[in-house]
């Protein structure tokens, strides 16, 4: 399978690999996919008091396109609000990385990971508010 240069670049030099402190109230975690399906993405975002994402880290078990999709979104997320992050569409990811049709699901997974991470941080904030 021929990969685009951008996929190869992210795959060879993945950005923002790693984890954030999952117990930090300002950190949201999204884990999507399943090992049986061949891909699992874990995306962690750290949000400041203004709702702006200040850090993002990922770990991905999956093909080159899945790794590239998650690496790319960690770059995109930094500096965006969680609402802006939530609005990221898989088609933008697929287009940026020139994913072939059989790899579109990787971009869907990345979008799902963002939504899961944002939902997680919102749930945490909600819980904190209720506790307060």
């Amino acid at each position, binding site marked *: 399978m021929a*990969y685009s240069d951008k996929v190869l670049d992210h*795959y060879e030099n*993945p950005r923002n*690999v790693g*984890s954030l402190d999952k117990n930090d109230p300002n950190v949201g975690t999204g*884990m*999507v*996919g*399943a*090992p*049986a*399906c*061949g*891909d*699992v*993405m*874990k995306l962690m975002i750290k949000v400041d008091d203004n709702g702006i994402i200040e850090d993002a880290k990922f*770990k*991905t*078990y*999956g*093909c*080159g396109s*899945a*790794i590239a999709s998650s690496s790319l979104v960690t770059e995109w997320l930094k500096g965006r609000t969680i609402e802006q992050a939530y609005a990221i569409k898989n088609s933008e990811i697929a287009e940026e990385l020139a994913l072939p049709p*059989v790899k579109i699901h990787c971009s869907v*997974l990345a979008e*799902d990971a963002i939504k*899961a991470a944002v939902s997680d941080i919102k749930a945490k904030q909600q819980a904190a508010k209720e506790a307060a």
Partner: protein
Amino acid sequence: MDRDPIYLDYSATTPVDPRVAAMMIPYLTEHYGNPASRSHPFGWTAEKAVENAREEVAKLVGADPREIVWTSGATESNNLAIKGAANFYAATKGKHIITIATEHKAVIDAVRELERVGFTATYLQPEANGLVDLAKFKAAIQPDTVLASVMMVNNEIGVIQDIEAIGHICRENNVIFHVDAAQATGKVEINLEKLPVDLMSFCAHKTYGPKGIGALYVRRKPRIRIEAQMHGGGHERGMRSGTLATHQIVGMGEAFRIAREEMEFENARVRKLRDKLLAGLQSIEETYVNGDLDHRVPHNLNISFNYVEGESLIMAVKDIAVSSGSACTSASLEPSYVLRALGRSDELAHSSIRFSIGRFTTEADVDYTIALLKEKIDKLRELSPLWEMFKDGVDLSKVQWAAH
């Protein structure tokens, strides 16, 4: 790319041995001629070459040259044997077929096609080591079983089935026995004088011969009949029509001659390399060898690297040419059906790599491969959330995965 990748995919196809290529080229240039043209020497030279090659093929497998029918490759041989014998004997023996779930697609799909036209089939599951349990095989035989098809050497995991024992069971039960030996020639001894096998498929391009040529062994004593699947000029005693590609046949003959003469030496050399590779890779944590190690050709090593996804692994090791799953089905994203049949989890099936070693593999190639794998597996596991969880002691089988 700076350098050619190291080729470790000999089970997908082998390079043509230079000696084979040298034999073939004259038949592409000065000796051209249609071997069925009886009337002029262009045809005669071709015919003689074809018959010499037929003898070489027969010699490697202990057959009579008259038992060898040329085909365009193992896929055609398998289709011809299975459809040809099943159709010929359906009326007298019945319409049930036994095969193994880990057979090559050419066998599985030919049997499926027969199911479509009224046959029934049993796809026997092998044991976890890839081998067929003889008692289970025997139990699968029905009164109307016409044909059994079992491969000698599996293309993905390299395990060698006990063809002799299975053949005896077939004989006792009056079942025609076909064996796909595409991956076996030059790797294991085949003596059809002794083996109770009725039909056997071969191809050249897995044994340092050219692509596009294969053969089917059709036993004469006791005589096995098959219904032709390709009709025309009546070549190959009516079993298979179509102009023969002389240079390819000559190539197959020479490839099989070399295999016969050099097999013993070559297998010893290859085994040493494979064992070195195995030791090197097993020093990596969480690796699993797929398929039995004892009943296995020395050329094959199929190994799963847990917590690493197969396709990204293939990308990571692009400096070596290897397969994840079978080359013939690797256009699909499904995990290998062979590994699944062994009961491997989808994750381990996904993260499997088939290394296949051959005539031109060097010790330096193996050293390089071990070092490369160690480095890349480390890197990918660093990226893998599953590895992180495993290291944290999480039981992955208990995790509720988000549906996708």
